């Protein structure tokens, strides 16, 4: 018998009601999955990245922006029936109380707070702790079990202030006014945050975006996020001898930088905005000339501080560098467990540049 944070007495272990099934995290007494990686009957989605929000579930519960993102990406195939839940609003699913609380990761991102027989488990999804002009900040909720990511679960990952990184970008733009500044950024979340940060830093010129970002940027604007004037990066100008859009900022998905698409620009300075840019070998692998350490995931200090803030005696780690985070959690006196969820890390920066590149094995 142990005392839970809600003050109730509970005899059952948390793993008896929240389990890892073939489709992902499965809440048995509620009959629903959280961020399942294959179609299920009932799903609670923490946010819109495709490795968390897949198409084809019969019923989906999520915040309104997350549902809008799902719809924008998959159209009518997104889900059967959807239910929007505001931050803080509580519903009961089966025997389980469910609340969504801001996670600070991207627009609409939420932690799922689950309560069952006096126990509380928080499934945080992906999260970060620092301010982001495009979404409300992470709210720590005291719990018995905190389910956390560990994308940047090594003490070398301590992200700098984003204003400094934007400052370096603007300095480079001033120093190389004849070159296009081409920024690789994930289409959902990172791109809009970088744009919003540029606006905050006083950059008022139009920002040019890759076609793959247009719908999501419009969606952010519809939800009231001010991104200033955006223009399509292609087709705006005819061919110029030195390349198109000299001295302008262009955002594109990281993969597009390597594609023929990027050849149209004026001797581009290739910038990549990602937490992985903290490590030089990774930045070089990404061919970044201007690596910008801007991340939507908690860094090492934030991961550790969050475990303290939610005061959870037990921590489950979903994906990332589990080993070091579990070690650190144990050193804080918590029980730690790796869930090793599959299918994570296919969108956004969870998709680490592979630790070993092919380059080293050649020759």
């Amino acid at each position: 018998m142990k005392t839970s944070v809600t003050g109730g007495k509970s005899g059952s272990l948390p793993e008896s009601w929240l389990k890892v099934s073939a489709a992902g995290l499965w809440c048995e007494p509620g009959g629903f999955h959280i961020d399942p990686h294959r179609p299920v009957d009932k799903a609670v989605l923490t946010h819109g990245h495709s490795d968390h929000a897949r198409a084809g579930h019969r019923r989906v519960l999520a915040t309104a922006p997350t549902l809008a993102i799902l719809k924008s990406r998959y159209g009518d195939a997104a889900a059967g029936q959807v239910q929007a839940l505001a931050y803080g609003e509580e519903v009961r699913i089966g025997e389980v109380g469910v609340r969504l609380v801001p996670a600070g990761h991207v627009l609409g991102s939420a932690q799922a707070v689950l309560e069952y027989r006096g126990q509380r488990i928080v499934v945080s999804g992906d999260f970060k702790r620092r301010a982001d002009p495009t979404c409300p900040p992470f709210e720590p909720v005291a719990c018995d079990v905190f389910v956390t990511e560990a994308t940047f679960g090594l003490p070398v990952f301590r992200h700098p202030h984003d204003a400094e990184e934007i400052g370096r970008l603007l300095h480079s733009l001033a120093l190389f006014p004849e070159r296009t500044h081409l920024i690789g950024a994930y289409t959902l979340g990172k791109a809009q945050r970088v744009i919003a940060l540029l606006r905050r830093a006083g950059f008022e010129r139009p920002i040019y975006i890759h076609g793959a970002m247009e719908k999501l940027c419009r969606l952010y604007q519809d939800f009231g996020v001010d991104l200033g004037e955006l223009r399509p990066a292609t087709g705006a100008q005819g061919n110029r001898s030195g390349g198109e859009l000299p001295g302008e900022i262009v955002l594109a998905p990281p993969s597009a930088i390597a594609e023929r698409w990027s050849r149209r620009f004026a001797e581009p300075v290739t910038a990549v905005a990602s937490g992985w840019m903290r490590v030089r070998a990774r930045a070089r692998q990404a061919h970044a000339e201007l690596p910008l350490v801007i991340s939507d995931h908690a860094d090492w200090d934030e991961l550790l501080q969050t475990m303290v803030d939610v005061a959870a005696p037990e921590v489950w780690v979903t994906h990332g560098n589990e080993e070091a985070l579990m070690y650190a959690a144990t050193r804080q006196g918590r029980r730690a467990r790796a869930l090793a969820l599959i299918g994570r890390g296919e969108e956004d920066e969870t998709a680490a540049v592979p630790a070993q590149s092919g380059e080293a094995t050649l020759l």
Partner: protein
Amino acid sequence: MTPFAHLLDALAYMSSRNGKLRLIADYVAHTPDPARGYALAALTGELSFAAAKPAAIRAMIEERVDPILFRWSYDYVGDLAETAALIWPVADSPGSNRPPSLDWVVEQLAEAERGRVPTLLAGWLDQLDATARWALLKLVTGALRVGVSARLAKTALAQWSGVEISEIEEIWPALRPPYVELFAWLEGRAERPSAEGLAVFRPLMLSQSLEESELEKLDAADYLAEWKWDGIRVQLAAAREVCLFSRNGDSIGPAFPEITNAAEGLLGVLDGELLVLREGEVASFNDLQQRLNRKTPSTRMLDDYPAHIRLYDALELDGEDLRQRPLVERRAALETWFREKRPRRMDLSPLIPFASWAELAELRANARAEGIEGLMLKRRDSLYVAGRPKGPWFKWKRDALTLDTVLMYAQRGHGKRSSFYSDYTFGVWRTGENGEELVPVGKAYSGFTDEELKRLDKWVRDNTIERFGPVRAVRPGLVLEVAFDAVQPSTRHKSGVSMRFPRVHRIRWDKPAAEADRLETVQKLL
């Protein structure tokens, strides 16, 4: 420290030469003395202080960070100074002191006894951010590696100030960090510093490649011929002190103490080829490479790879400037001087007698000795002119060797070539355990036109069978005829061989991959 750290960080990632020049000029324009001078010295490798050893840095970290977390982190990052910089715990009361400036750091380190270095470092690391910590640790371990040569740094100063680079290079040996008088001159606030009595680098005279069709327009009687030695071009400047310069004006004297010792007491500026010489025989370039890789050689290296200069020209002798005199006169002066002084570890590059171009062509065709790259032709009346004037000097290299190889991997380039698969790893056939297989023998990223590059890039994209990061493995289906200067044994390559200066000679769109060359053919060239 922070502006310097930003410069170093930006330089490390910037691939274009022009970009690097602009970054340095921007830094110099916005940074006061003496910090900018020390930064320049750090970039050109002219700072000296008690360097910290990696073991000392490791010990500092292990006092402050959980050793298991440190080990995992180091495994992940792969570089000690970088790991230490990233993982360094933030001080409890940051901001109690101002972050140290670069000049403060350099001046303190110059005075500090080695034993005090860790304490000093720890204090500074507590006050700096991650990028500045990285720069500091790279600085104190003496491993900047940001791709800036002394020549590039001086070029940046020239561009920024509008002063000719040759004028900067001539006075460089008279200058010491932090170069306050240099900046005063470049900013028009003071007279040009004087370099009288010092060993000074004189910009070199360079040759053009000979197009054989040009020969018939030239009169053989106007030219002297010498072998083109397979070493590196150097300039030996001996005055009150002795300096050995690379062709770019980088000082390489400390790496070749036997040469600078041998030149003690001489007075002159000599042009020649640096070689490894054993019992009068020129050793392979690979042997010289062993010495070039070391900033200061061990006694063993000095014994195993003895250095030597083969002289071919003199710019100054015994205080007299010869550059405005014709080559034949300079050569005569050099020969007389050499007979009188008999300097150790030097000899004269012999002149090759010849009566006609045909005779010379035959000599060239039959020259297969290790140390010879081809021929040099120099007009008898040529003055010593800095740069690469058209006409007076030609290099006539031995014909390159070529092989038909198969494209195996392609990697994306940098800068302008970021979206092109422009770096090609190629292989040849051998019989392995499972039958015929390709084994890589080299990598090339030049020798094709922009149009060909577009076509190669498309071929790579259309024939990719696997991707690893920026690299694509391709179906064995494209034959590249590769030209190279020599084949060397190599322990670093799977095939056991490596090539010198490989470049794409022709793209054999027509040739089936199965008809490319075999490893045995390559081994015969060793």
